[in-house]
């Protein structure tokens, strides 16, 4: 009786263990499928020509599969989004955690959560119907669908990540740090800028890197507002095309097993590796923060 019971218990544990590893299994599955579906392309062209090629003409005869303009497009809008999101997101985090009254906090924190909940397609829509005409008028452009528009929207999307994680990290800085600073005669602002924020720096950096990872992987908003020109960007007022938008726009029209199909999976591999790197760095930095503070 007991032996039977023990066996059942042991079996259940193994079952649970399997499901706990499901995320890892899926991750490996994703890697295998991405590589399997992109490798045939690299029998035709060299990896370096793919990564550093300056022309993306997948439907020309002969086609050209150079994704440098797409990689640069993604990097431009990602960096642009950080220029929007870091000052606003970090400023708001400092304000919410250190200055705002309890009542204001009760309004601001849910507002940031609501912003996080807005679907990306709705933001893209907002970018098309509100921000694009505005940019077109202000800068006298032929179209408001460009890198600047995408940067603004991606910035708005990254703000909740940056604000809420930074706020947690700033709040986690031990009180003793601040009290020591006040005791030395520093005022509240000096304490914040010279003690609290630097103590939370690694946590804040990890928030920024996570926000970056989100921005570079975001599809719908950039697909709708970035303009879609696969050229190497020179200005924020130009239309650009990102890796994600290319996959989303072109996969529907390619034949399975064509070079174009393989190339789009190749882009997904690059994208996957980039976000993986961002995520690993963010994790390492966050660990450093925890070790320092605790």
């Amino acid at each position, binding site marked *: 009786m007991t032996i039977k019971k023990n066996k059942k218990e042991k079996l259940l544990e193994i079952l649970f263990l399997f499901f706990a590893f499901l995320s890892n299994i899926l991750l490996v599955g994703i890697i295998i499928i*991405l590589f399997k579906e992109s490798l045939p392309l690299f029998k035709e062209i060299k990896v370096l020509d793919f990564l550093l090629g300056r022309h993306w003409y997948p439907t020309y005869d002969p086609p050209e599969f150079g994704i440098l303009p797409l990689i640069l497009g993604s990097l431009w809008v990602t960096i642009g989004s950080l220029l929007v999101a870091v000052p606003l997101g970090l400023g708001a985090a400092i304000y919410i955690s250190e200055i705002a009254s309890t009542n204001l906090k009760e309004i601001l924190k849910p507002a940031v959560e609501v912003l996080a909940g807005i679907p990306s397609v*709705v933001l893209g829509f907002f970018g098309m119907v509100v921000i694009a005409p505005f940019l077109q008028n202000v800068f006298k452009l032929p179209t408001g669908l460009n890198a600047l528009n995408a940067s603004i929207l991606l910035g708005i999307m990254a703000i909740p990540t940056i604000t809420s994680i930074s706020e947690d990290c700033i709040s986690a800085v031990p009180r003793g740090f601040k009290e020591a600073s006040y005791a030395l005669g520093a005022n509240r602002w*000096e304490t914040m800028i010279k003690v609290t924020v630097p103590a939370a720096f690694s946590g804040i950096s990890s928030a920024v890197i996570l926000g970056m990872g989100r921005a570079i992987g975001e599809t719908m908003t950039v697909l709708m507002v970035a303009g879609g020109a696969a050229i190497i960007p020179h200005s924020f007022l130009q239309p650009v095309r990102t890796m994600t938008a290319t996959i989303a726009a072109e*996969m529907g029209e390619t034949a399975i097993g064509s070079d174009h199909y393989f190339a789009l999976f190749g882009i997904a591999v690059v994208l996957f590796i980039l976000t993986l790197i961002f995520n690993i760095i963010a994790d390492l930095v966050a660990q450093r923060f925890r070790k320092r503070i605790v």
Partner: protein
Amino acid sequence: MLNISNRKWRELKQQIGFMTVRLAALIIFIILGILLYFIFSRGIKVISWDFLTKMPEKGMTAGGIFPAILGSFYLTMGAILFALPLGILAAIYMTEYATQGKIIRIIRIGISNLASVPSIVFGLFGLALFVNYLKFGVSILSGSLTLGIMILPVIIRASEEALLLVPHGFREASLALGATKWQTIYKIVLPNAIGGIITGAILGVGRVAGETAPILFTAATFYIRKLPDSVFSEVMALPYHIYALMTEGSHPKEQKAIAYGASLVLIIMVLGINLLAILIRNYYRRKKKW
């Protein structure tokens, strides 16, 4: 004299600093306000009972968005039905069984990296695996599975948190009475964690309902003649519908108006779902005081 001006200067700097960060918070608040204002003020004019319950008409330039709402409902339900049991089982291992730090670390790396995979990559994965390889086609099933995989990390983390909130004494009391580990989990731990798990699941629904990229090639279509009748049917979905209205078709003006309405419906759905999750969380928190 010098001292006083120095102090004044420092105070001025503090004032400017406070102003700057206050301004940052204010700008975020204003951005949210403008966004909601535009969608609400334009969208509300389009929304009516017919808009919510009728099929689209005249090549998407008139009529309602019912099939898109229904399609989003099917896809999110499918995703949760798939991800919730798997997520709970994974969380049970993490909180109840795992003892070795190394195994937990490896599992956590998997969860965290799965969560960071871009949504369009999930879409390609679903296309290659479910649509093409397993021959589910562009269907509710393929889309639900793809979305389900995507929110698995969210569900695992939420379930884990909920399980950890159950006090240790509960488990010890049950074990002391001679119950086995599984009996303890099944009869004591899970029932006490259910509120938190439901909250996590609903938050997952809120995220999935707004996702577009994963269903682009696995489930969604711009127009269907009849409502889906099996899990192998293609569906319209609300987020995809908004995208298609803005990028396809030949009547931008009429389509834009419908897109405003659809955006408002989507925002209300997503925020409503999140609000529901918060209410349920608060209800269980009040009920359970350990």
